């Protein structure tokens, strides 16, 4: 296939050619970046929490009625938990101050010495009793769980620094990179040490924002029952397949024990709901980008079909002459495919520059991450294929122009 005649012909269709080039370039720039954003968001929202999500739900129990003393609250929390654990559909339940993906909560600086000025790292603080590991369904990979006699209580405005702490593998690695964390101390905004008695495989923190990614799995568990007058979170793990039943029974059991409470639906629910709540903006963005990408590709393809069809119609006579002079059908087909490849090639080259520029703007303006070249490569292949696919129908039509067309005057 000779390229020179194609180029000569294109010179006679400058405006149309430039428009297709421009359209392909813009489409490539947007599609590459959109695909990159989709991938990032999907990756973000599918990060595992490390807990038994399918069977978990959370109840945020707020205390209503006359204000109770700390002892009264503690007794009520224990009674609530006993009632929850006795429900047939419930495997285990534990009190806590928060849960993974909650969107915000307690986190502390952690250091290795009592007089450290610059903390070693930052970790989410989860409170709980000896049932918490089982209630969450996290796996203990080293050391042991809390014993019942180690569980303390935390009242309003009390500052308690427990002697034992369970940390995640990520936090253990950050504090003691040589892997010797078990049995070692950590200092969490206090001069009293907490000994690491256990290490769990994985437990995500409460916040899923981008700035938090570096700390996403640095959590620690303190053996404390939360006895604040405002309220407490109950982490409840249903027996496999009995989540719905457990979610129905649990509030009933709690209200039967004491009706003076409020269960806040915006901060409670099954873990599927919690996950959805935490990542809704990510999912929304991914869907939107997906829709925009597909519509853009369709529009660009339609534009190519439209212009090429027009060109084919315009050149019927010339095609007939070529056919009469011995060109085969596939020569004509090849001609239009090559023409499109040249145009798309130009568009893709300009589009690459635009895509990188757009990504740079996103990095500078909105603090997103730099795009990996794989997306550029993917986008280029996608658009070249799209161009060839779009031009196929008009090109086939052109190849079927009979040689006799050359003899017609129009």
């Amino acid at each position, binding site marked *: 296939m000779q390229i020179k005649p194609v180029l000569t012909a294109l010179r006679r269709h400058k*405006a149309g050619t430039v428009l297709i080039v421009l359209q392909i370039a813009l489409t490539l720039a947007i599609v590459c970046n959109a695909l990159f954003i989709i991938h990032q968001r999907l990756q973000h929202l599918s990060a595992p929490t490390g807990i038994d999500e399918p069977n978990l739900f959370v109840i945020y129990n707020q205390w209503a009625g*006359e204000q109770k003393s700390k002892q009264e609250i503690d007794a009520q929390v224990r009674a609530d938990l006993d009632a929850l654990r006795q429900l047939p559909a419930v495997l285990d339940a534990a009190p806590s101050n928060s849960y993974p993906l909650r969107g915000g909560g307690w986190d502390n600086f952690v250091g290795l010495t009592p007089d450290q000025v610059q903390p070693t790292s930052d970790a989410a603080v989860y409170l709980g009793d000896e049932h918490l590991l089982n209630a969450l369904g996290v796996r203990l990979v080293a050391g042991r769980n809390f014993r019942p006699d180690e569980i303390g209580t935390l009242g309003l405005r009390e500052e308690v620094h427990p002697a034992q702490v369970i940390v995640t593998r990520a936090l253990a690695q950050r504090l003691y990179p040589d892997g010797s964390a078990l049995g070692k101390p950590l200092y969490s905004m206090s001069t009293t040490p907490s000994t690491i008695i256990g290490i769990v495989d994985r437990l995500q923190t409460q916040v899923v924002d981008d700035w938090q990614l570096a700390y996403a799995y640095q959590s620690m568990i303190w053996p404390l029952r939360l006895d604040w007058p405002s309220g407490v979170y109950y982490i409840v793990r249903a027996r496999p397949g009995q989540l719905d039943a457990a979610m129905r029974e649990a509030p009933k059991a709690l209200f039967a024990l004491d009706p003076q409470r409020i269960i806040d639906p915006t901060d409670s629910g099954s873990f599927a709901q919690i996950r959805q709540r935490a990542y809704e903006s990510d999912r929304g963005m991914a869907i*939107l980008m997906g829709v925009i990408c597909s519509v853009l590709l369709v529009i660009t393809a339609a*534009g190519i079909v439209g212009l090429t069809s*027009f060109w084919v*119609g315009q050149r019927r006579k010339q095609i007939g002459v070529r056919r009469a002079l011995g060109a085969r059908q596939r020569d004509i087909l090849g001609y239009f495919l090559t023409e499109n490849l040249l145009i798309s090639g130009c568009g893709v080259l300009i589009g690459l520059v635009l895509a990188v520029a757009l990504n740079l703007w996103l990095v500078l303006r*909105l603090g997103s991450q730099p795009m990996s070249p794989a997306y550029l490569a993917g986008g280029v292949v996608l658009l070249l294929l799209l161009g060839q696919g779009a031009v196929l129908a008009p090109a086939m039509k052109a190849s079927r122009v009979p040689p006799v067309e050359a003899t017609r005057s129009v």
Partner: protein
Amino acid sequence: MFGYYLNLALRSLGRNRVLTTLMVLALALGIGACITTLTVLRLLSGDPLPGRSAQLYYPQIDPYPKDGYIPGQSKPQENLTWVDATRLFEAHHAPRQALVALGSTKIQPREAGGRPFFGDAVMTTADFLPMVGAPFRYGSAWSAADDTAGARVVVIADFLNQKLFGGANSVGRTLRVNDHEFRIVGVLGHFSPQPRFYAINLGRSYGEGDGLFLPLRAARDMELMPNNISCWEAGDIEHLETAPCMWLGLWVELPDAAAVANYKRFLDGYVREQIAQGRFHRTDTALPDLMEWLRIENVVPDDAQLQAGLAFGFLLICVTNTIGLLLAKCLRRSREIGVRRALGATRVAIFGQFMVEAAMVGLAGGLLGLVFAELGLWGIRHQPAEYASLARLDPGMFAFTFVVALASALVAGLLPAWRACAVAPAPQLKSA
């Protein structure tokens, strides 16, 4: 003449139904996406108090310790400590001013057996509601004397009045808030500035609004905790009034530029005085007005900007696409143009004819785009974001849709129309 062009345009568009549909659809999608994202952007960057926002200012200072301070590279803090807030407040350097903090309160319905529920409460001072122009349905705001006396009075929002008293005049009745009796002195009419500028740095930013407005001192007397407390060193938050913690906002009303300059001088003077006393170490102060404050607080999320940018890129591609298709269409009609030119049509006439055709495409695209925009906004209203329920097309945006549609179509039509009127009649006629 125009009628004739219209007729010609309709015929021409009708002849290539697929091509016309494609152009209109592409344009409509681009416009729909643009209008949807722009509506959201406008909603997010809107003025919560039109007419008043230019007079409301938010003083900022920085009580942080010296450690890590690099002059010129630090920004004043978002909120004030109790000590600074009350000192600035009591200096009375503005005609009207108000302290604001946000809390969550437990409200006990009157009737027996009613379940208590939680409601957002604004702890503030007497001038707040009049200063921001909140309309009263019944009663009025409390007085400055109530502030100093720590009187247990409360102003409730219309939706709370509806829920608790069925919308009746409840002034003079009592409301049980966090187990304390408060006397209702006022019921608001609809008051829901979007975004809730006074609450942005204190907790929430969009949505229905706050149910309760109570005097700061009375609220603190019953130990109502603010939602947002940020401390720069370990402090006893049981005694928030003395702790090294910031949790209050101060809004001042400054009627003109002289008053603003005056207040800024006062603020700088206050900070210098505190530095001289050894309480402060940082000189930075700021006095943004309401809209500037919203910009500082970054109320428009990055995602919304990204979406709007993307929608414009999308529209650009759609316009390019329309140019290409219109061009193809009009070049195919070279012979028709040649005949018209030979019969005496001027170049201007041909240009006009093709621009009318483009405008028709634009109009159709705009109409359909409006449908897409409504669909898009409907989709956004079903999103769980705080601002979602407010995403609606207002008359301004409605008109703007057609401006965008016509402008895009006319821009798209320029090149093809120009090419059309440049067609030389003779060769076209000869080859026929």
